């Protein structure tokens, strides 16, 4: 398969993830959609690395994976803290930080 197929698929997945973030209101689902976008970026990185014939893009993808794991840990910690304080799990109801 040509590399452009992978790139088009990756941008499609990224757009789906962005749409999900705009539509959904539950913080858990928003984190899931963030995962979709990060994985689309990973797919593009690996595809470009194959295109160039160089493995450094795969290193980049692994580092992105580490950052995504950190983001999940902190985000889920936030969600658990929100839930423990009996606040609504809804990003439109939690608007105290809004300017």
């Amino acid at each position, binding site marked *: *398969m*040509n*590399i*452009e*197929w*992978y*790139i088009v*698929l990756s*941008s499609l*997945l*990224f*757009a*789906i*993830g*962005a*749409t*999900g973030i*705009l*539509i959904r*209101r*539950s913080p*858990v*689902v928003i984190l*899931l*959609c963030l*995962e*979709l976008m990060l*994985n689309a970026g*990973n797919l593009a990185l*690996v*595809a470009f*690395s*194959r*295109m*160039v*014939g160089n*493995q450094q893009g*795969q*290193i980049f*993808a*692994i*580092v992105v*994976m*580490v*950052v*995504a*794991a*950190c983001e*999940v*840990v*902190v985000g*889920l*910690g*936030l*969600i*658990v*803290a929100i*839930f*423990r304080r009996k606040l609504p799990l*809804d990003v439109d109801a939690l608007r105290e930080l809004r300017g």
Partner: protein
Amino acid sequence: MEAVLFFGAAIGALGGALGVVAMRNPFYGVLALIVHLFSLAVLFLLLTSAFVAAAQVVVYAGAVMVLYVFVVAYVGGDTESAWEPIPGQRFLAPLLGIALFVELSIAVLASSLLALGTHGPDVNPGFGDPAAIGRLLLERFLIPFEASSILLLLAAVGAVVLAGRLGTGGVSKGTVRGSSEHSSEAPAERSEDPLTVPSHASGGAA
């Protein structure tokens, strides 16, 4: 064969992604994301990056998704009440997503990267296997490797601080209360006991 695998995995990845966005119940969303991640691992294998595919399955579909399942089970997978706080958001957001997709595709495909139309140069069989990635990671990219380890440590500490016991003081007070919850009940009993039953208090003291 490669085309069949690619389109199968692409359909799986797209279906998983759409499932994450469309499922009302977050639990089914997590399951759809697992399908998506496995399909992406197949795509990584097609791109001859075996180590990234293995890490994808082990780290993502294994560890991270278990974390998600635990949190969804803890928080409760109740469905969202209504979809749109802004009127028309349900229709505007997919439009914006389509616009984003078109823009990204134009940006990439209209670039003058001639190698996009090929399937990459021929690589030796060791391309992207764990030995090559490990050598690259520990020799050339040692500093990013160590920086990411520090980042993981920071994230673990941050999660403990954030999700610790409900307290004003953060982690120190939280862990004290959390660890000595059993013993903090005992002093309360002991302070109550002299008022009500003095014999128990003397027995506890003795």
